[in-house]
């Protein structure tokens, strides 16, 4: 059974529809990506999942059950605007939050120390949050979200503001949590993270669901439009081939855009005739390209 299932969920703020009939389901041990432009309704959707605000229509089910207070123990949340007490010691507040979520003090303390070690910052235990840098505050926020070993984890733009090393660290952690069976609903603006972590995604645009499903399936649905070609010497006449819409010279080869897949064969033949082909690839569209296509095509707010 799905760990989390949204069915036709709607949220309106006054006249404005923030989320319009979104349906999605997250399996146990899955990282589900929620994508969309600014103001698309990702945070609003997450807040409804958390029970912070109530949907105007539709249903949200947690392992088949409606929202109930037991969920407080099994949900973890990293808000998009990181929330921690600025003037309270890291250990005091994280243990407090863990206890509110039903952990005992000693378990919470053990878990907190584990996570601090894991992030290589054991000395933050006694620091006040306001003394930490923004990125490190965010790590503490992440620890606050996972310290009680939640089964359903909601991460709203978890990686924003982190340096590449910490992003990798966090990605590994998220994968590890997934492998332990945690279901994760995850929003981000960085498509490469989604490609690495998620199998299923939903792209929202101005409150509507515009693309949804398995990432590989989604990609198959979009035409392959780029060819990467590397040869030992120059190839001429590529731009005159039918179906080729653009040729871009790169350091060691060409990046070509094509309007039909048959053009790729013509490029290969042209190249083989003139030189030795070192590398030939018909590139899959990236999620980034798909996103820009579906969201950025029309004018945005």
């Amino acid at each position, binding site marked *: 059974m799905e760990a989390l299932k949204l069915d036709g969920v709607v949220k309106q703020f006054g006249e404005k529809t923030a989320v319009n009939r979104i349906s999605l389901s997250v399996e146990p041990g899955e990282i589900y990506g929620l994508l969309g432009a600014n103001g698309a309704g990702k945070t609003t959707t997450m*807040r409804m999942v*958390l*029970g*912070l*605000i*109530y949907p105007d229509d539709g249903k949200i089910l947690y392992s088949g059950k409606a929202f109930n*207070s037991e969920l*407080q123990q099994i*949900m973890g*949340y990293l*808000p998009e*605007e*990181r*929330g*921690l*007490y*600025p003037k*309270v010691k890291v250990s*005091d*507040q994280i243990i*407090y*939050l863990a*206890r*509110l*979520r039903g952990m005992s003090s000693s378990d919470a303390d053990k878990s907190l120390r584990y996570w601090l070690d894991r992030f290589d910052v054991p000395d933050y235990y006694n620091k006040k949050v306001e003394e930490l840098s923004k990125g490190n505050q965010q790590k503490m926020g992440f620890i*606050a*979200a996972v310290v009680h070993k939640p089964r359903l984890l909601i991460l709203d733009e978890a990686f924003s503001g982190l340096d590449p090393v910490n992003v990798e660290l966090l990605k590994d952690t998220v994968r590890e949590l997934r492998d332990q069976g945690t279901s994760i609903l995850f929003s981000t603006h960085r498509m490469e993270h989604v490609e690495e972590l998620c199998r299923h995604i939903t792209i929202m645009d101005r409150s509507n669901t515009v693309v949804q499903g398995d990432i590989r399936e989604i990609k198959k649905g979009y035409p392959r439009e780029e060819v990467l070609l590397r040869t030992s010497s120059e190839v001429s006449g590529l731009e005159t081939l039918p179906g080729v819409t653009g040729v871009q010279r790169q350091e060691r080869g060409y990046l070509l855009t094509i309007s039909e897949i048959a053009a790729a064969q013509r490029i290969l033949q042209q190249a083989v005739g003139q030189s030795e082909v070192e590398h030939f690839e018909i590139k899959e569209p990236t999620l980034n390209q798909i996103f820009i296509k579906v969201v950025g095509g029309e004018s945005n707010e």
Partner: protein
Amino acid sequence: MNKMGTIIGFTFKNKVKTKSFMITTLVLVLLLSIGMNIPYLIKVFQGDDEASAGIHVAVVAAEGSRASELLKNYASGVTTEGGATVDQYTSAEDSALKTSLDEGTLDGYIQLGAESETGLPPVTFYSPDGDMDAEVQTFLQLGLQQANAQLIAGDKLTPEQIGAMNAPVQLDTKQISTDGTAVTDEEKDEAPIINYVIVYALLMMFFMSIMMTGNMIAAEVTSEKSSRIMEILITSASPLAQMFGKVIGIFLIGMLQIAIIAAAVAANLMLPHNASILTDFDLDLGQLNVNLLIYGLVLYVLGYFLYALIYAAIGSIVSRTEDLGQAVMPITMLGLVTFYIPLFSISNADTLVVKVASYIPFTSPLSMLLRIGVGDVAFWEILVSLLILLVSIFVFGWLAAKIYRTGVLMYGKRPTIKEIRKAMKAYKI
């Protein structure tokens, strides 16, 4: 309610450690200690000689002067601190008199002329600075008056009878009740002075404590909201548990502060040099009404909760700490009214205003305290007032919880009442 305990503990622990709590408590204790020691300090700074040496005057009169004898007699009966001493000299040129005056051990002297059947002739007081201080004046006036009476009456009256003659006549007033009979004594029973002192002190302390803790709660809620930790908190524990946890946690802070202040007052009263203050002001701790203190505590607790809940609700609808001051203005005003009604009525606790105020929730805790302490109040009246207060706490508690649940997630501009009402309908507490 395991979570509520956790919230209470966390709130208490964090607030106790704040500088503002420590500093206000320390300042209050210091001010009180200084205030209570002012009478003693004045004494110390004025110097011991003047204050404790008592009255010391000389009489210049002929050997065997009767008036002089009578004055000496009177002096021996004076009981004020230091007593009174009267020396007799036959001449104002006496060298012993001169040296005493020069050394300042003598306040001054009077010259008595010949005495006759018609009493004393006018008396003049000579002193180095030409002044007569109040103590000496009272002493001489009374002493000479008695001497004069004794001289005129001769042996016909004993000194006791003379003393009784000079005692002021007691003049009492009594109100006539509507049916024409005099009001019986019991009903008009004046509260002991100590009650006034206690009521005054409790009014001050409760008002300050409720305002301080109330603002603490509102600030705490607003800061949780503006730091967005509220979103995590709301998903971890019910808003009701959070609000009451905070209110109770800060209640403990208020009680701790009151306990510290009470301990400081007690310690100051215990100081040996302050023991006389109580007697000087005619205060008898034995008269201390334990009932008054118990009622005071109950009223404080109920009053605290009523105000605290409203402060929590206000804190929840404000998004930024800067806007908080303006938002709590109405409730602060109400607090001031609650405080000033009984404060201005302390000498006359049975006015209609106080009576009405003692039933209205918000104003009732302090006004009822005044009536219990120094007014006329029947037990059923106290009971009714407490009941109204208790019911209002439940009503406002429910309302505050609703507002809190709604308010904590409303960001941006301060929501209008209409917006809050609409949003409130959506949430179960």
